[in-house]
């Protein structure tokens, strides 16, 4: 079983630790993991800005890079959503390669939850004795279905919680607004920077008011925005990608 590791461009440049954690989570499960080194960006920033026409060549490169793998795994719900939900206009409906990529791409926690299954996950050699707040990033949460959105009348589920709760000594904290957007939104964070900042602060305060020590999530872009505010304002709150906790950060 061969896994292609898809690391979002900005994570490759800025978050090697969370990226490496993703890689190691998979190799620890004895998968043959390969990181195609000529991957760049899935095109999400351009597409969400209205320039999806520019994305065509990136989409084709992406599919060519990853079509040979049994699974494609990435530490980002929103980049996976981009490939799954927004690549269709660039390919013929019956494009074999794209359809394979589309159906074999997973966010890392989703992969652990749906493919490996919680009962087969073993975190007994790690411990994370902290109060943890989960920021449910919108694309992963609502588009990818990592959890049940609060708006819908559907049975409660959270793949991220299901996996995180297996970590010994972790204390998952309930937030006041379980799936409110943090205001990152790609270029939104600069074109609407006032609202973006206000939303981010509200999200952080929800964690602070619930005495959270560590904020985590499955999308580093949202966490980068939130951590930028936390760092600027000197707020006492640590931010970690979910893969870092699952790999045993602090151990």
């Amino acid at each position, binding site marked *: 079983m061969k896994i292609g590791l898809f690391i979002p461009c900005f994570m490759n440049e800025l*978050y*090697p630790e969370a990226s490496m954690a993703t890689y190691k989570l998979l190799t620890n499960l004895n998968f043959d993991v390969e990181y195609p*080194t000529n991957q760049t960006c899935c095109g999400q920033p351009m597409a969400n800005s*209205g320039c999806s026409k*520019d994305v065509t060549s*990136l989409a084709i490169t992406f599919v060519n890079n990853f079509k040979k793998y049994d699974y494609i795994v990435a530490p980002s719900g929103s980049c996976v959503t981009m490939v799954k939900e927004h690549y269709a206009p660039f390919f013929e409906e019956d494009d074999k390669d794209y359809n394979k990529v589309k159906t074999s791409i997973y966010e890392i926690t989703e992969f652990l939850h749906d493919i490996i299954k919680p009962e087969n996950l073993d975190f007994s050699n790690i411990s994370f004795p902290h109060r943890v707040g989960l920021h449910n990033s919108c694309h992963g949460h609502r588009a990818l279905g990592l959890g049940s959105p609060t708006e819908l009348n559907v049975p409660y589920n959270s793949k991220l919680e299901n996996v995180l709760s297996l970590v010994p000594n972790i204390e998952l904290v309930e937030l006041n607004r379980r799936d409110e957007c943090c205001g*990152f939104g790609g270029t939104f964070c600069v074109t609407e*920077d006032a609202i973006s900042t*206000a939303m981010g602060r509200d999200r952080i305060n929800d964690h602070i008011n619930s005495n959270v020590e560590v904020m985590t999530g499955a999308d580093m872009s949202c966490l980068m925005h939130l951590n930028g505010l936390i760092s600027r304002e000197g707020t006492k709150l640590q931010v970690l990608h979910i893969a870092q906790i699952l790999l045993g950060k602090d151990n």
Partner: protein
Amino acid sequence: MASHPENATKYVANDERMHWHDKALWFVREKRDKAAHGIPEWEQLRDYASTIKTHTMNKLDFYLEEFERNATAKGITVHWAKDAVEHNEIVHKLLKAKKVKKLVKSKSMLTEECHLNPYLEQRGIEVIDTDLGERIVQLRNEPPSHIVLPAIHLTKMDVSDTFHEHLGTEKGNDDPTYLTRAARASLREDFLTAEAGLTGVNFAIAETGGVVVCTNEGNADMGASLPKLHIASMGMEKIIPRLKDLSVFTRLLARSATGQAITSYTSHFHQPIEGGEMHIIIVDNKRAEFLANEKYRQALNCIRCGACMNTCPIYRRSGGHSYEHVIPGPIGSTIAAFKEPEKHNSLPFACTLCGSCTNVCPAKIDLDSQLYNHRQDLAEAGYLPKSKMLSMKVMTYVFNRPKLLDFAGFMARKIVPKLPKSLIYNKFNVWGKTRDLPEFPEHSFKELYTKMKKDERDKDDK
């Protein structure tokens, strides 16, 4: 016209009011959740609503004609208006024929869309909005900031000041009961002296030829029953095929809007009152263009509950007026960008594509997809700022060249940490206005991975 970010920046600057507005609407959203989650078949109801609306829109000509036939048979006069001007002219002609000096109106977003009030006022007719929220904003000479809660942007004290100025209430008395009684007394006078009443329409039933109006204050019933002339204005998308379809929508509407099981009044108007006249004006005003457009057609399925506004994290923090469009929020943004892209091109970007609006929508309109599509269409039509287009082109250029990207990343990691803060956090760095940049690591993941693989190979070779 100001862009949404400009208006939003001003709104956010008043932190206290912004949070008060956010919390007020979040409270409504939570009430909605409770009501929606109290019905096991909620998601099925949404499916039904979407199916009924989609079916009706696909056969709209058929149902509109059926409605006209059945309404006419009940003694109601049906008029057709191609646009806002025609609508206003028809209303004016009807009022003029009866020498109407005062018109009482219940809530109708369509007449806001058509700018009916100023049109009639210029022609010497007094127009009184009788929905309490609408009356408040009318007295203040403001547009509504929400389609269900028109005065949600105002505090009790704002209302107290307005009523003190216009209705002579005590200065500084912001007791809600006191203020409501004052409005009631003043409105009662208007109901009794008006010669005509105009209502909106929530649902028009093709099978029966009647219209249904949902209110909480009973003001539509007063306006439609006391004067001898009742005019009901409706967008042509308000049609539903059968009476029994109505039950799906009445169950969804109030729960989605305010978390109530049902509105206090669900009034059916199926004929003129004794000795009176009833007229229904069916308005197109670019709805046919929506219908012809596959990407945006679903926007016509809207039942105007306002749930997408209450849940939208941007709407809650920027207020309805920041959209500068008669209907604000997610549904307003898609309608505005479709109808007048030259004016409203910033609205589809006033959104993080979080998708919450699509999930609360009782008619399951694909709101976030529509806003995503608008962005592509606006870019294609040249409405994107040149700077944004250029930066996206540059990014694409780099992303198409992995080696160049590696080099740029490498240089950034080497240089940025050595730069003085004052150089990094300049006025062009919008991110850095309120946020620190992440700490730049020494190596990229790719560098670490490549080295690790090389080490593994070297080890194997030994």
